[in-house]
């Protein structure tokens, strides 16, 4: 069983569309994250939720809206997609916040291409 799973794995969509990426973890963790990896492989945190509450919200356009229906799920919705949104988006989780010294586990990534 995959510990942190995200869907879809690949997504090609047109500019202006709205799309969602779903993430689920079966590790019983309290904290979940979204990271973005750009074309230069740089990984940057976007959001972090702890027990469904937003705890980290980096400088991300408000077209990106995370939603956590329960602590095992953290979905990412993106409105009005732009070319610059093309990237790999990684979901991750940890038992508690990484700032408390907890190991973080990543999903396999979702490759988003905006054309």
């Amino acid at each position: 069983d995959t510990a942190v799973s995200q869907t879809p794995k690949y997504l090609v969509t047109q500019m202006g569309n709205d799309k969602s990426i779903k993430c689920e973890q079966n590790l019983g963790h309290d904290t979940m994250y979204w990271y973005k990896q750009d074309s230069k492989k740089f990984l940057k945190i976007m959001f972090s939720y702890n027990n469904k509450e937003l705890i980290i919200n980096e400088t991300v356009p408000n077209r990106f809206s995370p939603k956590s229906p329960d602590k095992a799920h953290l979905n990412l919705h993106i409105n009005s997609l732009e070319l610059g949104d093309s990237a790999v988006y990684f979901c991750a989780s940890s038992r508690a916040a990484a700032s408390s010294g907890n190991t973080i586990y990543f999903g396999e990534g979702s490759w988003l291409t905006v054309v």
Partner: protein
Amino acid sequence: GIQVEQSPPDLILQEGANSTLRCNFSDSVNNLQWFHQNPWGQLINLFYIPSGTKQNGRLSATTVATERYSLLYISSSQTTDSGVYFCAVVLESWGKLQFGAGTQVVVTP
């Protein structure tokens, strides 16, 4: 400014060679992890090592927290070791897991 620096940025190794990757960080940390991103893009957790030394097979890592650096050793490298190695830290002053830019490793047969 830059808070996590990795070196070298690129490394080409012949199969069987040993190598050392370095991660410098700008402040005290309470979380440091090493990851391997394989050529298929999967991020694999190698070590959780805010201090001390750990070994896992041909890989080992050492963090000297007082001197603000961590080292990842790859011994007897294999082609499957190819990929990007990331160091990620949580700085006590910041509270977020911050990644370095990575070291791209290519192991040739």
